[in-house]
């Protein structure tokens, strides 16, 4: 063990508070579904969903950094875990969602009737 362990209990409860608060906000938004967010589309998704995904990534950050304690690891370990995952996921999402949208357009604009 290279580093001395100090107790993190204060930080753990603080992070639990943040994660709970964010989840509660998500559920409230999901039930209320405010029209000005839900009906406004931006880049293929409505604003409400963008908020949900942003809050999810915010939660994910706290789980990985505080609970999995990657903040305490060597920066080389941190980089080799976090960057490949982020890059590959963004790449995969971009490819698949673009393709999905393209197929949607093909179905919609073609002369084939598929849903009847």
């Amino acid at each position, binding site marked *: *063990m*290279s580093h001395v*362990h100090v*107790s*993190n*209990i204060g930080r*753990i*409860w603080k992070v*639990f508070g943040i*994660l*709970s608060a964010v*989840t*509660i906000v*998500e*559920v409230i938004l*999901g*039930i209320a579904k405010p029209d000005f967010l*839900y*009906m406004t589309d931006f880049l*293929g*998704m409505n604003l409400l*969903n963008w908020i*949900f*995904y942003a809050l*999810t990534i915010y*939660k*994910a950050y706290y*789980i*990985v950094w*505080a*609970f*999995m*304690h990657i903040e305490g*690891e*060597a*920066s*080389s*370990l941190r*980089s*080799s*875990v976090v960057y*490949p*995952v982020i890059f*590959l*996921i963004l790449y*995969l*999402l971009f490819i*698949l*969602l673009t*393709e*999905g*949208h393209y*197929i*949607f357009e093909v*179905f*919609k604009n073609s002369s084939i*009737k*598929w*849903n*009847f």
Partner: protein
Amino acid sequence: MESTVTTATSGEKIWGGDNEPMGANYGKLMMWFFIVSDALTFSGFLAAYGFSRFKFIETWPIADEVFTHFPFFHGVDAPMYYVALMTFILIFSSVTMVLAVDAGHQMKKDKVVLYMFLTILGGAIFVGSQAWEWKNFIKGEYGAVETKGGSLLQFVDKEGKRVALADFASSANAGREQLTKSKGMWFMSEAPLASYSVAQVQAGFKANPELLVRTEVITKDKKKTVLSRAQSEAMLTDAHYVVEGANLVRNEYGSKLFANFFFFITGFHGFHVFSGVIINVIIFFNVLVGTYEKRKSYEMVEKVGLYWHFVDLVWVFVFTVFYLA
């Protein structure tokens, strides 16, 4: 450079063994890289879900119409509350896990035992909740009808409220009897029959003039299309199959892929939780018999902790993708 050069400047022996690349020992490092690969597996599934959803963006089911149950509150429309509760249970078991790791660093065995026990309890409650969630999903609530073209028709009243097949399907001419091995020739049998035949649904629809058909197509104001009575009757003549609940072939909620993805992704996640509970139990007993006390290190608890937090991390995304967005 700091992220690529790890040991050259530290004066450590690089080739003689006993060194720890990136400052983590073998087990912990491999747990991290297992998590990387597992994260990419889940990303593949969720991205495939996104692909299919974008492909059928105009006909995909609306999530808060699907998951509306809460234990002991029958018939109460409670979207999301139960999964929100499940999310809390899992986050809280993550907290007790990290508290166990923290207690391990201070070599406090009794506290590690207590917190690991609470973690296992939380995990078990979560798996149980997921089973209940699946039960409701499989059983279904309203029932629907599939047309020859493969699209799904649901039933609503004048106000647009959903109506269950059981509320209007005609009981006259109760269809035919289930063919079972004991009744058929040559031990023939068939898939379970739906509670109502297509003809019964059509007759019941005719007898209730206030009923309308709702299709899968989402309109401009982000609601499902409700047909006029004349259109509904015309559409219903194309019906060929009664759908109740969900299975891997069809489901009463809408797009066939929806149930497949639900079963596969939440099932795969549930399997991770289940194996996490098993691994936690093993480590729990090791703690109890004092294995790590003798080893003078509770790092094993930290390693299973990493896995357990990862399961929580995945659930945060599954929660958003299936229940919120």
